[in-house]
């Protein structure tokens, strides 16, 4: 770890974006999806990225996740600069440092729930003997211990999203990234999922996680997040601290 990285880590920031940009070229046109965004997320903070469709919130989340690389600027996660990481190191970052929950769940339909949840453990080369316990623990946490042998298509949307959360948590990451986690769910199920995420943020045992959630529903953001950052045309247009 470099001196700069150590300082970042010691400052208590789980994520720090420093003038991050992401531009796409479409023919002769340059699309500025994210433009010079600087943002700090404190360890244990619940941040909501709010904005209309096309505002750049999902692009920013992908950059934080290490699924995409910025065109300019730097992103630090847990003290490490993602821009300097090799693709192998970025893969390890996605596997161990963060957990991702998608709007469309992204469970593999050919696998059972336990197999889906086991995938990050396989990728992390966790010993086989250790895996069943970890999978069981994660599924218990989201209340799906009775559905381990079911395939995703045999579950409701809410159950699938809970399974996706279990998969995101199984490697015990310090950061949870959620991209419109309730976007495909009805309001009641969405609320259940948000309560689950809130429980992960501030669990009874006190070992909470940093959460960055992309949403376009202000009500949800106001209800659960510590801070709301609103994006508009790739730049931060508003920042509100709620708690």
């Amino acid at each position, binding site marked *: 770890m470099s001196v700069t990285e150590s300082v970042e880590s010691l400052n208590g920031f789980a994520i720090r974006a420093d003038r991050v940009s992401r531009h796409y070229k479409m023919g002769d046109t340059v699309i500025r999806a994210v433009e010079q965004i600087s943002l700090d997320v404190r360890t244990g903070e619940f941040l909501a990225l709010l904005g209309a469709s096309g505002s750049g919130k999902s692009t920013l989340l992908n950059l934080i996740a290490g699924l995409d690389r910025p065109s300019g600027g730097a992103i630090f996660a847990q003290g490490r600069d993602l821009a300097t990481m090799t693709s192998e190191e970025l893969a390890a970052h*996605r596997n161990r440092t963060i957990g991702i929950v998608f709007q469309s769940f992204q469970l593999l339909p050919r696998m059972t729930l336990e197999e889906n949840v086991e995938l990050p453990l396989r990728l992390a080369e966790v010993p086989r003997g250790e895996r069943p316990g970890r999978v069981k623990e994660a599924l218990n946490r989201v209340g799906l211990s009775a559905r381990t042998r079911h395939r995703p298509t045999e579950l409701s949307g809410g159950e699938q999203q809970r399974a996706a959360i279990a998969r995101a948590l199984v490697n015990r990451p310090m950061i949870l990234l959620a991209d419109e986690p309730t976007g495909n769910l009805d309001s009641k199920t969405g609320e259940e999922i948000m309560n689950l995420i809130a429980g992960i943020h501030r669990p009874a045992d006190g070992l909470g996680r940093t959460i960055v959630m992309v949403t376009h529903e202000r009500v949800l953001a106001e209800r659960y997040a510590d801070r709301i950052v609103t994006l508009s045309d790739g730049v931060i247009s508003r920042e509100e601290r709620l708690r």
Partner: protein
Amino acid sequence: MKLGDLTELAARNLRESMLRNSLTTLGIGIGVASLVALLSLGVGLQQLVGRSVARAGLFDMISVRARQGTPFGQPGGGRRLGRDLDNLAPPRALDDAARKELAALPNVLEVNPEERFTAEARREPYSQLVMVAGMAQSSQSSGTLDGMSGNFFSGPEADEVIVQGDMAKRLLDEGKAPASLLGQEITLRFAQRQALPPPSEQAASDAPNQAVGPDEEAMGFSIVPSEKKFRVVGVTPASDAGGGQVGFNNAGLYLPLAVAEKLQVVQGADLRDATRSGAAGTRYAALNVRASSPAAVSQLESSIAQMGFAAFSLIDVTRNLRTFFAIFDLFLGIFGSLALAVASLGIINTLVMAILERRREIGVLKALGAANRDVRQLFFVEAGVMGFVGGIFGVALGWAIGKAIHLATVVYLKRQGMTSPNIWNVPWWLVLGAIGFAVLVSLASGIYPASRAAKLDPVEALRYE
């Protein structure tokens, strides 16, 4: 990701698109089958010829003779085999001392005199002029008597004879099987060399056949007609039954070497030596040197030539034969591989299709922490598993096709009234090599799809519907 996990995931993915993957695997199997079927026939033919050559003793035998003048315009006579023989020793007599020296050379298993003579074989009412040869005890285990009916000589000095199948027919009533000669007696009549008795005994003798004339005195021995009975213990296959040449020196009858030596039959070398002055002790017409392995023959031949003898082997013939079959097998392999090349296109097609279908899945794997290497390896293992399963299936199918061709050949040859040699063989190296080759071709076919899958942008892949 660990290999075990990769294999599990690959097997699961392959099971999910069972029909398409089975058809691709079948394509590989057919490719491997054509390769195995062709090569098994090539190997079978090679072994068939190899057995015949080995039976003739060509692989490890060197015939040594006294060097006579300079036939073919070269010193020493015989084949030179391209070796530099400028420093040859002067020609030497092939006597007991020479035999001992030859036996002491490295890589020499045994040195036996070549006992060959013409005799009359009688079995009433039949009589045949026949070439008789002495056979060393080592011939029993050398494979030269493969297919023989009966047994080898009961001992090195037994009055027993092995009869070549064609000769056996001539000593039997028409239509009788050569093997029916087993256990019967044959009388051999031959010209025997007898040492002259001391002069005092010559004077006392009245026997007419012991009278010593001036010619005999000059030769140092007399020649008398002699005969001896032998029991037939073995009959080798006749030439129309897959038999033919037996041993390095082909003959109609074979006696134990020691017995043949004791018969003291007059040979050409005796008469030649008689015309020379100072000839004393045993002189051999030829000595057969058996090398420990065919690889040692060349060097031995050279050493023997350096000693002042003419050495002769057919190692060059066998070398050319091996070269021919190596090229023959190569061509068969190339033709067999064509089908495998077509099958490899099937693998590429299947895996590229799989990438399109599993685009989103690849995106999910990457989002969960799969490195490009993991995705590449996953597709590689899938290609390898298809190659391995296709290889096993192909070997089994190729084995069956080769066997079917062999059986069809047997039936055809039998209908033609001919014996059917084994022209088909699937050795272990072919089985393992074919499976390994199938896996290798499959992995090579997987390079492009695997690399394409690994390079997929996870963000794009996750958006794919």
